[in-house]
């Protein structure tokens, strides 16, 4: 649905060229929620703004739903943008318009008639659960309600793609959960493809089917979350299941095991104990239901001098095992 190839964007800042996005390729499948995670300054915001050409890339192509946007300009580009929704970190609502007025704006832009507009606005506000707040100004709404208005506005043009620019970063944990829940719901019900950027692992955990970790303008890893969980050394896995610094356990080997999918519920510990008669100690870990899959990660202390047969045994059972250093 979204296809980015060789994307590059450089800024001039205080006399120096700063590469914000450095040769990035990205494919987001139809109906997928794709998260790009990275710290601030990693270039993820620039990347997102290149998708609807709020920023024009220096090199590379961006196509959405089969249309090469980088080849468009003027009114053709404006028409293409009408088919891409966008939500923003600070909501970007017009303070001078009510919730209904804000949702109506994109419809006014596209020239939808007054009666049809009113009908569609009511329908959209109902969709995001704000049917009763149509006449409220943004200043009278909570952060979560403002973002719901933002989402209703983004959906006005019946887009196939929604771009989310840190849409939950200004919200508290509970509200973040409910906004992500709404996005997932829209994703399922409308088949909406969502590309979101975030610096919160929790967002990837709760909502994303696929993810990319971005640093210094590049993707350091990218793929379906379930696949990345099975990739040795994955930064995303470490971020989703942080285990902290490795403790020193004399006479034992400390290993981190990651299990996902069907493996997540296997009794791997009981199996180890039975097979090797081993006093396995759990040093930390968690098993959780992610949006993509069920997964868990445990840090274990395996007693004995030679852990190799144990590691081999675990690997044969489809468990990712890494010796923690």
């Amino acid at each position, binding site marked *: 649905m979204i296809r980015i190839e060789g994307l590059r964007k450089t800024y001039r800042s205080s006399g120096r060229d700063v590469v914000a996005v450095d040769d990035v390729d990205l494919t987001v499948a139809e109906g997928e929620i794709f998260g790009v995670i990275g710290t601030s300054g990693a270039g993820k915001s620039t990347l997102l703004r290149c998708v609807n050409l*709020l920023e024009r890339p220096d090199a590379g192509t961006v196509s959405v739903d089969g249309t090469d946007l980088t080849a468009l300009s003027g009114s053709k580009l404006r028409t293409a943008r009408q088919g891409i929704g966008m939500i*923003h970190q*600070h909501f970007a609502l017009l*303070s001078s318009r009510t919730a209904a007025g804000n949702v109506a*704006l*994109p419809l*006014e*832009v596209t020239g939808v008639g007054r009666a049809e507009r009113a009908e569609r606005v009511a329908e959209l506000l109902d969709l995001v659960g704000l049917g009763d707040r149509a006449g409220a100004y943004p200043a009278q709404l909570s952060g979560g309600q403002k973002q719901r208005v933002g989402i209703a*506005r983004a959906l006005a043009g019946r887009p196939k793609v929604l771009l989310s620019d840190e849409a939950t970063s200004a919200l508290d944990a509970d509200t973040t959960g409910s906004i992500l829940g709404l996005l997932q719901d829209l994703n399922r019900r409308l088949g909406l493809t969502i590309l979101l950027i975030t610096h919160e692992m929790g967002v990837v955990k709760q909502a994303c089917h696929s993810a990319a970790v971005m640093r210094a303008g590049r993707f350091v890893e990218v793929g379906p979350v379930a696949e990345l969980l099975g990739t040795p050394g994955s930064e995303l896995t470490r971020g989703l299941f942080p285990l902290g610094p490795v403790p020193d356990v004399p006479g034992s080997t400390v290993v981190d095991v990651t299990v996902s999918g069907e493996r997540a519920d296997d009794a791997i510990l009981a199996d180890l104990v039975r097979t090797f008669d081993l006093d396995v100690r759990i040093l930390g870990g968690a098993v959780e239901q992610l949006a993509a899959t069920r997964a868990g990660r445990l840090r274990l202390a395996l007693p004995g001098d030679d852990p190799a047969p144990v590691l081999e045994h675990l690997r044969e059972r489809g468990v990712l095992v890494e010796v923690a250093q």
Partner: protein
Amino acid sequence: MTWSELTEILGVGLQETAYMVGVSTLLTAVGGLLVGILLVLTDRGGLLAAPPLNAVLGLVVNVGRSLPFIILLVAVIPFTRAVVGTTIGTSAAIVPLTIGAIPFFARIVESAIREVPSDVVAAAVAMGATRRQIIAKVLLREARPGLVAGLTITIIALVGYSAMAGVVGGGGLGDLAIRYGYQRFETEVMIATVVVLVVFVQLVQMLGDLVVRRLSHR
């Protein structure tokens, strides 16, 4: 001077001031809005980015703002003659008043529009809005409270400028205060004039604040 003479000259002065300030406010609102919008749009990263044009426009505005009004008043005499046909009188005073106030209001318009958060503008661009739609439906609409507050400031500044219009025979309350109070030592007239001016300014400010409150939903 009798009471009725006083009220008569005050009435005429008030009428002249209201006329000069009223007409120049209308012209300034239009001119200042245009120049202010252009200052924002042509700036680096603006919707119609044209840094050289922006620099020239900024320079012209700054020159207009640095000239003391009394000098501007005299300097634009040839232009006034070309526009109004005369260089003396209340109508003639409107030309320098407007020219003096446009740069002032333009800067206020510029800063009011810059107050509109950039992500709101980005959201409009992302919706596929045209430049015209963004200016009308987003920039001007969102800046409305600031624009009205700025226009109020401008009207009051124009009342102040109009006092100097006496130099070109513009008349008005300020001129009255100078001629009677300063030049003829008729303190009562001066005080009466100042009182009327204070009330006038007060009313303008109150009305302006009222409209701003109505428009503001922050």
